[in-house]
């Protein structure tokens, strides 16, 4: 019998309650926007004393069954394009593999602080650009007074759909998109690359499917769950082969997140399409602030800045608080939108 040399923590009741609560809100956000939660769950587990690699492994082990349940439920409402999800997931796997390799190289050359700085800068740059774009789009739709109408396909997506490359064209029926696979490959690859760096590939995958391929937001967020399932499943096997999955953490997270994801899925049927973009943009931009706060800490650890230890500790705390704020903001917007949808007279309560 071979055991990994890893210390698994003694779980306290407070830890269990915290995991259930974070799992619930993470599930709620995942059911609604297809991803999210991972950026809080991993640091939250680490703050309980769970080693980083075990936190990542346990997070992945709760992610794939959660994504499976979410995709199954959203498929009932006709939101999932399984073919698009599988095509994206295939190239995402290559992105994950290369991303892990890049991470390894950076860690070898610049150590732990260099690796942390790379991850934080990737968060800040990608989330600020993509989140800002998504927010701008959501505000434009809201101001146009056409928030009830079907989303308009972006100019870029119209061009992508117009490009005919013989032998590479694929039709994705649910998304109602016909594009060359040469466009989906780099998109899936970028999703996997981001997933391996910041653990939330959906922050590229969902906007990519919406703005590059022209898939509606509802379809893109649901299809992202298929990608999350495939990547989470593969990641779990990889970590399980090294005995790194703390099944207790994974299953406790799952207990909360399955309540949340069912509610998030129901929420998508009550809100206007642009609300999905609002939630996604809000989470992305708050997370960008969170990661931006720790950049000076890592620069200090690399000897490029000179911050007092107390200031560094404060920045770490503020950063984690912003991560929790991002998740809670997403959860509150979703629940408020659902209530508004219910008051608008649609929710069959009896």
């Amino acid at each position, binding site marked *: 019998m071979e055991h990994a040399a890893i210390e698994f923590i003694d779980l306290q009741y407070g830890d269990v309650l915290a995991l259930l609560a974070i799992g619930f809100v993470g599930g709620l956000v995942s059911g609604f926007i297809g991803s999210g939660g991972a950026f809080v769950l991993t640091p939250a587990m680490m703050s309980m004393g769970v080693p980083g690699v075990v936190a990542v492994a346990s997070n992945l*082990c709760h992610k794939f069954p959660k994504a499976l349940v979410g995709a199954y439920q959203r498929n009932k409402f006709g939101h999932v394009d399984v073919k698009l999800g599988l095509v994206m997931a295939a190239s995402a796997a290559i992105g994950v593999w290369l991303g892990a390799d890049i991470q390894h190289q950076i860690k070898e050359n610049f150590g732990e602080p260099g690796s942390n700085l790379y991850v934080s800068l990737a968060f800040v740059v990608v989330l600020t650009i993509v989140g800002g774009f998504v927010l701008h789009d959501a505000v434009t739709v809201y101001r146009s007074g056409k928030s009830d109408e079907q989303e308009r396909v972006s100019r870029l997506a119209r061009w992508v759909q117009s490009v005919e490359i013989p032998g590479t064209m694929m039709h994705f029926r649910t998304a109602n998109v016909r594009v060359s696979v040469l466009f989906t490959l780099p998109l899936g690859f970028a999703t996997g690359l981001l997933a391996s760096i910041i653990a939330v590939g959906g922050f590229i995958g969902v906007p990519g499917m919406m703005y590059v391929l022209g898939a509606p937001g509802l379809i893109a967020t649901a299809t992202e769950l298929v990608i999350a399932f495939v990547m989470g499943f593969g990641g779990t*096997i990889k970590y399980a082969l090294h005995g790194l999955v703390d099944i207790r953490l*994974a299953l406790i997270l*799952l207990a909360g997140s*399955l309540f949340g994801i*069912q509610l998030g899925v*129901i929420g998508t049927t009550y809100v206007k399409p642009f609300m999905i973009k609002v939630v996604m943009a809000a989470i992305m931009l708050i997370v960008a602030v969170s990661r931006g706060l720790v950049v000076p800490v890592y620069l200090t650890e690399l000897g490029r800045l000179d911050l007092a230890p107390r200031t560094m500790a404060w920045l770490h705390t503020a950063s984690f608080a912003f991560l929790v704020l991002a998740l809670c903001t997403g959860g509150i917007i979703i629940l408020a939108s659902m209530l508004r949808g219910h008051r608008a007279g649609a929710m069959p309560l009896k």
Partner: protein
Amino acid sequence: MIRREANGVERSKPYPQLIASGIASSSLYLLLYLYEREILSAFTRTDSWYPALPVVAAFVFSFAHGVFTACFWEVLGVKGRKK
């Protein structure tokens, strides 16, 4: 208990499924609580087919608990709207 849907169709709430899946789900979590050490020890072994255990457990729990949570919201009357 009977509830009327938006299209006028009357359906009973899924209390039997809620109870059955609730018992299944809580039994699984009770086993996890009672045999925490033994389960953790077996699930972190890397020889033979032991690495498959976390994956199998995740599927089994997600099925039992997934049915329970779906019935839970339905019994509360929180249901998705088919467009």
